[in-house]
């Protein structure tokens, strides 16, 4: 086995039912979260929609939307991928199928369900990317520890036959999440004011940088060589990127509070780290794209096609992130829809395309699972079109809002100016929701895969 690509594994080691269960749970929670998102997008220009019904009010639905995307859709999709990939990377089974069933139940029935119900009922915490209340946070933490126990030990036990960068990202991502989650979800409940915001800022970035990004990159680094059957372009660049990302990501958080009362030294550190992060991502993405070895951006294989697009989004969103951390840019675009466009590019562009690529890659390996390539093609194009429309639209909206605020225009002028953009943004939900439905169709219809051995690697 060449250095820099995942190794084949005996399918007997893979808990295929858990891949399937987490995959379907991911899509179910995704569709619910997207519905929340569509309602709140509508409410920005039909503000009386749902008025008088507490759980349909904008604030509560927004809490449910973002937590659902991160913990429902992405986490489930990542777990599905890990059940597929960890045995193939290590040549060992995951720690325990029994633990896997408990983790699945805990995550979906003791985290997502009560999390959503409580937030919509008004029991929550007003902390970004941490809105589920403390009691649910505790369960999430148990779940993350279970995931660490489930997926990390195979890397340390007998049977390692290749040092692959995906493994590093899996280990790093899981361990970091276990550390960062309590720091962002629990600490600000006890640290007041701007100091609490400093911790929140770290978490807002850690959620993306230490949980979502490592998992998404693990998928990308796995799928590209698995499909192309050629090694990653440069193992050195993979390792360089890994270490730089893991050093720089945690230092980014304070850039969410630029020009605030948080000490300037911390702000400058975060801005510097943000700029360096952009440079690092250029290295990482160059290495990934060079690894395509001519497979092209629009590969036949849907898993590859999704992760390649995720890689491109990763580059764009990271450069954008570096740019908007600079004080002069931040003074203008912060608080506007620009940032909402940015976060959708990160979570719906980069992370979702990676997660979708992981699922699309893993699915045909599940014995007896259905797979519909035509629907997957539809999913790809609908998502790409919808997301691009939304991000471009919100970015322009943000620039318009920022300009009006700088000019000292009356506040309501920025609302009136944003309205057409908010309408377009809501319409962009049609292809996006359609794309996700097509994706679900892709995983539940079509011919069944060989129920025997599955497809190798």
């Amino acid at each position: 086995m060449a250095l820099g690509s995942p190794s084949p594994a005996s399918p007997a080691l893979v808990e295929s039912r858990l891949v399937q269960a987490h995959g379907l749970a991911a899509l179910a929670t995704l569709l619910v979260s997207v519905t929340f998102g569509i309602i709140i997008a509508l409410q920005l220009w039909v503000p009386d929609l749902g008025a008088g019904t507490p759980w349909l009010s904008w604030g509560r639905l927004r809490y449910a939307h973002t937590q659902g995307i991160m913990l429902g859709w992405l986490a489930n999709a990542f777990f599905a991928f890990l059940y597929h990939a960890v045995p193939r990377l290590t040549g060992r089974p995951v720690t325990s199928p029994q633990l896997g069933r408990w983790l699945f139940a805990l995550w979906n029935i003791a985290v997502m369900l009560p999390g959503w119900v409580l937030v919509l009922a008004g029991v929550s915490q007003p902390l970004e990317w941490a809105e589920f209340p403390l009691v649910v946070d505790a369960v999430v933490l148990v779940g993350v520890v279970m995931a660490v126990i489930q997926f990390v030990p195979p890397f340390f036990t007998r049977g390692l036959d290749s040092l692959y960068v995906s493994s590093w990202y899996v280990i790093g991502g899981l361990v970091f999440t276990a550390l960062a989650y309590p720091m962002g979800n629990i600490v600000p409940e006890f640290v007041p004011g701007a100091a609490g915001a400093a911790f929140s800022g770290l978490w807002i970035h850690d959620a993306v940088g230490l949980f979502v990004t490592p998992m998404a990159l693990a998928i990308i680094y796995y799928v590209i060589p698995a499909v192309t059957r050629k090694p990653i372009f440069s193992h050195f660049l993979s390792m360089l990127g890994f270490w730089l990302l893991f050093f720089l990501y945690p230092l980014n958080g304070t850039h969410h509070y630029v020009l605030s009362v948080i000490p300037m030294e911390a702000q400058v550190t975060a801005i510097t780290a943000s700029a360096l992060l952009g440079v690092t991502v250029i290295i990482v993405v160059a290495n990934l794209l060079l690894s395509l070895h001519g497979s092209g951006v629009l590969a036949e294989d849907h898993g590859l096609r999704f992760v390649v697009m995720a890689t491109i989004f990763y580059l764009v969103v990271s450069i954008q992130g570096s740019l908007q951390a600079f004080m002069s840019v931040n003074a203008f675009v912060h608080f506007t829809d620009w940032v909402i466009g940015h976060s959708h590019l990160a979570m719906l562009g980069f992370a979702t395309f990676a997660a979708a690529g992981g699922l699309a890659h893993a699915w045909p390996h599940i014995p007896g699972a259905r797979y519909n390539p035509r629907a997957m093609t539809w999913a790809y194009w609908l998502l790409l079109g919808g997301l691009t429309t939304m991000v471009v639209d919100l970015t322009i909206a943000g620039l318009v809002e920022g300009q009006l605020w700088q000019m000292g225009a009356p506040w309501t002028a920025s609302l009136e100016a944003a309205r057409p953009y908010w309408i377009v943004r809501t319409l962009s939900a049609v292809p996006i929701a359609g794309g996700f439905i097509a994706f679900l169709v892709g995983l539940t219809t079509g011919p069944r895969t060989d129920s025997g051995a599955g497809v190798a690697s």
Partner: protein
Amino acid sequence: MTSQPGPVLRMSYLAASIAGVAFFVLSVAWLGVWPARKLAEQARLTGPEHPLALTASEVRGRAVYAREGCAYCHSQQVRFTDADIARFGAPTMAWETRGDTPHMMGTRRIGPDLARVSGTRSQDWHLTHLYAPRSVVPASVMPAYRHLFQGAPDQPGQSARDLVAYLETLGRVRDLAWPGGEAPAEVVHPARARRTGEVPELQADGDAALGAMLYAGHCAACHGASGIGDGPGAVGLRPRPTNLALHSYSQERVAEVLWNGVAGTAMPAWRDRSIEELSALAAHLQRISVPGVPADPLRADQIRPTDEERDLGGRIYAANCAQCHGAEGAGDGSAAIDLPVAPTNFTRQTPMFDEALRALRNGIDGTPMAPWGSRLSGDELTAVAHYVREFYGGRR
């Protein structure tokens, strides 16, 4: 690579894990713990020694604010940028937020920042706005929090009262900590309604067509499309929005009301508007107030007092009204300063005769103006109504 991974490979995974944890700890120490200590030190050095704690109601209101996600559209931090300072006042200091657990500084502004919102709007305005935002701000996209009320904006439930009580704390500590006890309005929040303060001169030839458009977009919600104070937002407001059609205003008075707002009422300050726009509004206002002869409301009524009525009115006014409205009707009586809503200055603003009589008889709900209908006879009320109207334009 090797098919016998051996301890070296496993060690490298271990090293990665340890280094990863070290990076994380470094970030938390550098960007979390150290700033927290520095902020605490800053707060200790610059903040008041005995910060104001929130009351039980304000604490409950904060919880409502938190659970409804208010902080996701309204930041609570004025940043160190020119645009922020111009719009929202002095930048937020470390000590101002030291009691906020969890913090709600926010990263998005769909609505304006609320760090200094106390004093910029009256309680009845807040309640009306929470109940039906577009009834007072037609362009607003805020959700309606009707579920916090019992069916009407002036029937708030406990949560709505608590929430408004909490809103009134935002910026309060900064305000009180100012040397001398109360900060100048523009330092705390440039849009705060204020009783006095320099007012720019409006252009005499404002563009009435533009004024009509602005009026429809921003004023009609409370004052009504025709200016008679019957807009959709009027229901829950105390005092009720003025019936503009039944009053005459001097240009100075219009400028003062638009620029400073009317402290103690729901009328906000419109200092975020240009002089052109305010002049245009003034021009439109002159059209809707006392139709026909805006410059001379006395002639418009065709009602003139007799000399006896003037004498009677003067005696009653001196005995009962001058303490607040001032001997010369300028709203500067000795008691005026203590009143939550400034008494009308009749030299710059005057009601039509019927409106004067109505206000005298019934008082003005929501202001210190008491009802005199049971204390004065019909003749006396008529006499006073005539008397106060003659202050207008320095006639007396």
